[in-house]
Structures are given as structure tokens and as C-alpha cells.
């Protein structure tokens, strides 16, 4: 039963909106297609709101004017991504309007929302409908007249959220790229989620409690059931329409009743299970036009389906351990979504691998350890994670490349694992590095500083020249059926030297396809993949 909000309430409400966003962060990320499908809207909103909260925490003065400054500054500085920046403008508009009023009521909020809309639209050079701008705009207009009736803030916010949800459901019809992707707008959904968090906090409820009760909540594939299923809207023309009478008659049929406008033209909005009766009552009062009846349950189910559907596309995520900037780039270009840095020694901790598995926005995960010393840590990490995950026992980056080529997003996790492991077994890996001390290996005398070539975990060649070592090792590794040689040059090898080696190899094997990439890996001057 909140009639007013003061400066000291703001931090709690911002925190509540942040908590709500964090819970839905992945879901929101998966909706992202506009303006760029880069999947970060959820994360960006979280980071932006987090920055707001941090600034608030730093501000001891809890007066509204000081809090306004903190929140606005925090969101401005912390704004990430398109959604974050637009949010920061909305926040600025909101708090600018509040000004230095210590206590704000429902009607102040309605006015502030209106200003938020204006400021946000102005800030975007080419505002597009069907985005979070539209959702805020629609939500704000729903607030305007109810606010004048001195409502409790929770009730007002509920009305706002109902409209925001409806607006969100309409976004695909406004923005074709959303329709094509079968999703609602990610930023708009973020706003709805924030609103839900704030409402729950005002009502003193847990978020789940709240979501069950007020309106379409989205997310998950369960059947959505609403207390009142149909949203009926229309214009009513009459003579001196008795608003109070009409309002109470409609309120007996449902909720979210709005009867607004001048005496002879009212805009009516009702949620009920008997839209027919609503219209009957109205036709007794005047003439109807622009009648719209929406089945909100279907819309909610549709949205839940869209949100759930936005999931399966990134059902499987791929984690790989790597060292070397070039190698990381290649892995990313082949579809690896999260790279765990292996460091100098290719020895990440189980915790680091686990973190990557948990962070990746997918329900199922494939891990490519790319070194036989990491396979165990990877398997350990899987045991700790709640996600379904499998380790592809890659022992080199070259095997990882082949495994990734065999990856098929349409196939199941286990089918992929089979195909990918199979692909690994087709690759032979050779490694060339520098001997760190004198030694002897299978009748070879090795001096410190020699280049040594390893294959099948044995030193097979040694010598003073990188090029020669590479040539000799490759000759040893090759057999009849091989067609391609992939070379990855290490951090310590210059481009010229690498090119020299590649040219020599290519000239020595004109029937094979030879390819060189700057892997940048530590320790191994050359990694050689033959298949």
C-alpha cells in the first residue's frame, strides 16, 4: 500500500530491478536480434543497473536530489551497449522530472515516465518502433490517467506492467527482424523484467509470487493461465457518459479497468473473461468503434514459446582451452563461444574451466581441453557443473580444429561428441620447440638450443634449423592418404621465418595443401597438423 516513494527507497528498488534482471539475464541475451544480434542485451542491462547501484551505495546522502544525481550519473557512466545507453537516458528523463521533490506519488511517477519517454526518444538518432522505446512509451501512456486517480503506487505500476507486457508482445509486429527471429524485443523485455522486480519489492513479495498473480509473465513453456483472459479495448461515443457507473459495472466483470476521455468519447480498456458482456454493457451506453479483443493467454503462451524458442538455437555451447592470440581467434571463428586461457603452460584450474562451463549461455556444453594434461581437469569440472557437458579429449589445437569442423548444431550433444572424437582421430599432430638442455633420445644427441620435433610424444628429430626440423618431422609424419598440412607458428617465430618454413614445405610437397597461420602460442615454435 505505497502512496509515496522517497529518496531512501530508491536504492532498494534499483537493487530489486537488478536482481530480477540477473535472474533473466540469459533469457534476455537469447532474444537479442536488433539492432545487432550480438546477444548481450541482458548482460548490458545488468551491468548498467549494477553501475547505478554502485554509485548509489557510494552516496551517503539519501535525499531524493542526491539520489537522483547518483543514479543518473551511475547509469550514464556505466551504460553498456545500446540497451544500456537507452536505459540510462530513460533513467535521466525519469529522475530529471522528479527534480528535487523529496516525496513522489503516483502522479509524479506518471509525469516522470512521460519525461523519460521524451528524453529517450530524443537521445536516439533514429528511434525505431518495436524496441524498448515503444514499450516505455506504451507503458507510460497507460500510466497517465490512472495516476490522476490517486492510486497506490503498486496499483499504478501493475497497470503499467500490464500495458508494457502487451506492448512487448506487439513488438514483433512492429519490427520485422523480430518477427523473423520469432522473438520479442530484448531491451523491451529487460524493461518489463526490471518493472517486475520493482513491483515485487514494493509489494513485499518474492518475484515468483508476483509473477503468478498479475499478468503474462513469459519464460518457460508451461501453460500460462491468467485470472482474466481477454483484453478488450474500444472507443465509446455517447452523450455525457457516466464514467463512475460504467467503471464500476466493468469492474464487476474483471480488472485493469480504464475509462478515460472527455464526456462524449471514452477510451475503454478491460481485462475480463467475458468480453461479450463488456461490449454489451458498453453498447447500452453509447456506440462502439475500434474494438480490439486480445486473448492474453495466447499472447503470453506465444511469448513464452518465443522466449523458450530463442533458447534451442544456442542449445550447445563450446568451451575450449587455448593459449596464443591467433589460435584463440581461429577457435572463435570456428564456433567456440568461451575460451579458457591456458597460460604459458596450458594448465588452467578446474575452477576456471568450471566457470566457463557455467557462464556459457547454453544448457549443454562441449569442452575441448586441447592438451592431454587438461583432460582430467576438464572432466573434473564437468562433475561439478549442473549442466550436461561432455569432454572431447583433444590433445592439440589441430585436433580441436578438425573436431569443430565436424560439429553440427542440429545434432545432439552425444552425437556431436561421437563425430568430433572421430574427427580428432584423423589428425596427426607434430610439435617443434627448443631443447632446454642437452639430452639423448633414441640415438639422437640433442644440444641445448636445438630445435626438437615431437610426434606421438616422442622426440623424433633434432637440429639447428627450424625449417629443417619441420621438414624432417613432416616427412616422418606423412603417409599416403594425407592431403593437408596446417602450420601454426608460435609467439617466438617471426612472420618471415614462418613463411620461409611454409614455402619450403609447400615446395617439397606440391600435391598437398599447405596452410600457415600465426598461432602465437607459447613454447612451441611450430605446431603441425596433418590429415
Amino acid at each position, binding site marked *: 500500500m505505497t502512496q509515496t516513494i522517497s529518496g531512501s527507497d530508491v536504492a532498494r528498488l534499483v537493487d530489486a530491478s537488478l536482481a530480477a534482471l540477473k535472474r533473466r539475464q540469459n533469457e534476455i541475451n537469447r532474444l537479442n536480434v536488433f539492432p545487432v544480434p550480438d546477444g548481450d542485451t541482458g548482460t548490458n542491462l545488468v551491468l548498467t543497473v549494477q553501475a547505478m547501484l554502485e554509485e548509489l551505495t557510494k552516496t551517503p546522502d539519501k535525499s531524493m536530489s542526491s539520489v537522483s544525481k547518483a543514479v543518473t550519473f551511475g547509469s550514464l557512466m556505466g551504460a553498456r551497449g545500446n540497451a544500456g545507453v537507452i536505459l540510462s537516458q530513460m533513467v535521466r528523463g525519469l529522475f530529471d522530472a522528479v527534480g528535487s521533490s523529496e516525496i513522489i506519488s503516483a502522479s509524479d511517477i506518471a509525469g516522470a515516465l512521460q519525461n523519460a519517454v521524451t528524453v529517450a526518444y530524443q537521445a536516439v538518432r533514429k528511434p525505431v518502433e518495436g524496441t524498448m522505446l515503444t514499450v516505455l512509451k506504451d507503458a507510460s501512456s497507460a500510466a497517465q490517467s490512472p495516476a490522476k486517480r490517486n492510486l497506490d503506487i503498486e496499483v499504478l505500476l501493475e497497470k503499467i506492467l500490464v500495458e508494457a507486457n502487451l506492448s512487448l508482445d506487439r513488438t514483433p509486429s512492429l519490427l520485422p527482424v523480430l518477427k523473423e527471429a520469432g522473438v520479442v524485443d530484448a531491451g523491451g523485455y529487460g524493461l518489463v523484467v526490471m518493472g517486475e522486480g520493482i513491483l515485487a519489492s514494493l509489494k513485499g513479495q518474492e518475484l515468483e509470487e508476483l509473477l503468478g498473480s498479475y499478468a503474462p509473465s513469459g519464460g518457460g513453456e508451461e501453460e500460462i493461465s491468467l485470472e482474466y483472459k481477454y483484453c478488450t479495448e474500444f472507443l465509446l461515443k455517447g452523450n455525457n457518459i457516466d464514467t463512475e457507473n460504467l467503471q464500476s459495472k466493468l469492474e464487476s466483470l474483471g480488472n485493469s479497468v480504464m475509462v478515460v476521455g472527455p464526456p462524449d468519447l471514452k477510451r475503454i480498456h478491460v481485462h475480463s473473461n467475458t468480453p461479450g458482456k463488456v461490449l454489451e454493457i458498453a453498447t447500452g451506453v453509447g456506440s462502439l468503434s475500434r474494438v480490439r479483443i486480445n486473448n492474453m493467454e495466447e499472447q503470453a503462451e506465444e511469448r513464452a514459446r518465443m522466449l523458450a524458442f530463442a533458447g534451442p538455437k544456442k542449445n550447445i555451447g563450446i568451451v575450449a582451452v587455448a593459449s596464443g592470440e591467433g589460435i584463440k581467434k581461429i577457435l572463435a*571463428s*570456428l564456433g567456440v563461444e568461451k575460451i579458457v586461457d591456458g597460460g604459458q603452460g596450458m594448465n588452467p584450474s578446474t575452477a576456471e574451466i568450471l566457470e566457463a562451463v557455467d557462464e556459457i549461455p547454453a544448457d549443454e556444453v562441449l569442452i575441448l581441453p586441447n592438451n592431454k594434461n587438461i583432460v582430467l581437469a576438464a572432466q573434473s569440472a564437468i562433475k561439478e557443473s549442473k549442466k550436461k557437458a561432455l569432454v572431447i579429449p583433444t590433445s592439440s589445437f589441430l585436433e580441436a580444429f*578438425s573436431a569443430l*569442423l565436424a560439429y553440427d548444431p542440429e545434432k545432439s550433444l552425444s552425437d556431436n561428441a561421437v563425430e568430433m572424437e572421430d574427427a580428432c582421430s584423423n589428425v596427426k599432430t607434430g610439435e617443434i620447440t627448443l631443447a632446454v638442455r642437452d639430452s639423448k633420445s633414441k640415438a639422437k644427441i640433442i644440444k641445448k638450443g636445438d630445435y626438437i620435433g615431437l610426434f606421438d610424444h616422442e622426440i623424433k628429430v633434432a637440429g639447428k634449423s627450424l625449417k629443417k626440423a619441420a621438414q624432417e618431422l613432416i616427412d616422418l609424419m606423412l603417409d599416403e592418404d594425407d592431403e*593437408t598440412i596446417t602450420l601454426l607458428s608460435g609467439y617466438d617465430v617471426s612472420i618471415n621465418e614462418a613463411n620461409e618454413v611454409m614455402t619450403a614445405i609447400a615446395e617439397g610437397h606440391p600435391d598437398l*595443401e599447405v596452410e600457415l597461420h600465426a598461432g602465437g602460442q607459447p613454447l612451441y615454435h611450430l605446431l603441425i597438423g596433418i590429415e
Partner: protein
Amino acid sequence: MAGKIAIVTDSTADLPLSYYEQHDVKVVPLIVRFEEETFRDWVDIGPNDFYKRMRKTNVLPKTSQPSVAEFAQVYKQLAAETEQIVSIHLSSELSGTVQAAEIASEMVDIPVSVIDAKLASLGTGLVVDAAVRAREEGLSFDEIAGKAREVAAKTKILFSVGTLKYLQLGGRIGKAQALVGSILNIKPILTLRDGVVVPYKKVKGTNKVFAEMKDFFLANVEGEGSLYLGFAHADFPEGVQRLKDVIGAETARAASVIESEIGCVIGTYVGPDTFAIVFYED
């Protein structure tokens, strides 16, 4: 003169030129604009010259579909000599040709069955061939159209491009967009699903390309009924030859093998060094 039913297609069916005359099929040409010149696909320039020019220049050719008026003219001419028309065209996801045909079909009095084959190049060509056979067998108008749709739905296509750049620059890359920018020298094998280009597999090394294509072929034929095969290439006859060698015996048992080149319009989007196999079993 084949009697009462006319069969129409567009130049992207990429059947050998002699086929159309031999089997009384009317072809509506698409247009290629290249360095200030305009060519009718297959008519004013042949694939060979086209690909040689394409290799030498950085300028991408531009294509345009036949206009409604052109289709209307063809249909009207045919309406004077035949009683029904079956008009078979490349995927509506790749070109507006089918739409133009559909609009034009309303402008003649005789029944026109416009069929979106959801295929391209010789894939469309095989559907045309199926319609031709059905007509030769004396089937009715509805049966011919039905046969064409049936074959269009079950025809498989697999193609290998030399580079994805033409597909990408030409905006037809579809779901194969995911294959672009893979840094490693990967050979993509592509197919069409619901008329859109999608990746089939990615492989390293040319040998694997043929091995995979052979596996796909074997996995998709049951060995029963008649096999209808088509091979097409864009200045890369070696690709087709090698593919035929790899598939071997199957080629021999086919009821029909059509070999052709990929025409300039499709070629604009796939580029030289592309080769393809299309097939269905009946």
C-alpha cells in the same frame, strides 16, 4: 510441337541449350549486367566466357529477373498454341522470378500452373525434365504439375563453391553465413533447404569434399526405382569428373544423367569453380 500442354521454365534451370529445343520447353531468360553490358543468361553469353571474365575482374555482375511483361508475352504466345501451361522456376527465396510468373499467369485465359521448385540451377532443370517426361507419357495437366511438385520436393542438391565470397556479396548466402570468416582454409559443402542456401558440412582438403559428397549421395539413394542424376559446374569440369569417378557405379545405373554448366545468373552468386550434383529417385 508437343501437343496441348506447354512447359515453361527460366534460364536458371541450366539445362544444356539443346535440351529445350529437343523437348519443346520454353525458356524465359534472366538478365546479367556486367561491366556496362547486358546479357540474357545463356543466350547472349555462354558460361565459359562469363566465368573467364568473372575471374579477371573485381566487379560483381548484377542480375535481374524477367519482368511480368516478359512472362505475360510468353504465356500469351503459348496460349495461342496450347491449352495449359506448366511453368517451373527457381526458388522464390533466391529470386522474384516465380512471383513475376504468378502475376503474369493471371493475365492469360488458359490455366497456368506456376511451380516454385525451391531449387536452383540443374535442380530446377531436373524438375523440368520430370515434367517433360510426364508430358511424354501422356499424363494430364494436373498430373504433370503434380509430378513436377513431387520431384521438386524430393530432389537433393549438394554443391561446393571455390569461395563463399560470391554468395555473400550477392546476398544469397542464407544460413551459410555462419561459415564465413573461419580463418582456416575450409571447404564448405552447401545445399538448399526450403529454397535457402544452408551449410551441409565443412571439410579440410579437397579430397574430403568428394568423399563427403559421395557419402551424402549414398545415404540419400535407396537403390530402388529409377535414379535421375544431374551434374553441373562453373568452369570446373574437373570437379564434376572427379565426382562422377568417386560415385562410380551409381552413375552407370542411372536412368538419366544430365551434365551441364552452371549458367551466368546462378554463377553470379556461386562464382567459378563451383560444382554440383542433383538427384532424385522415382
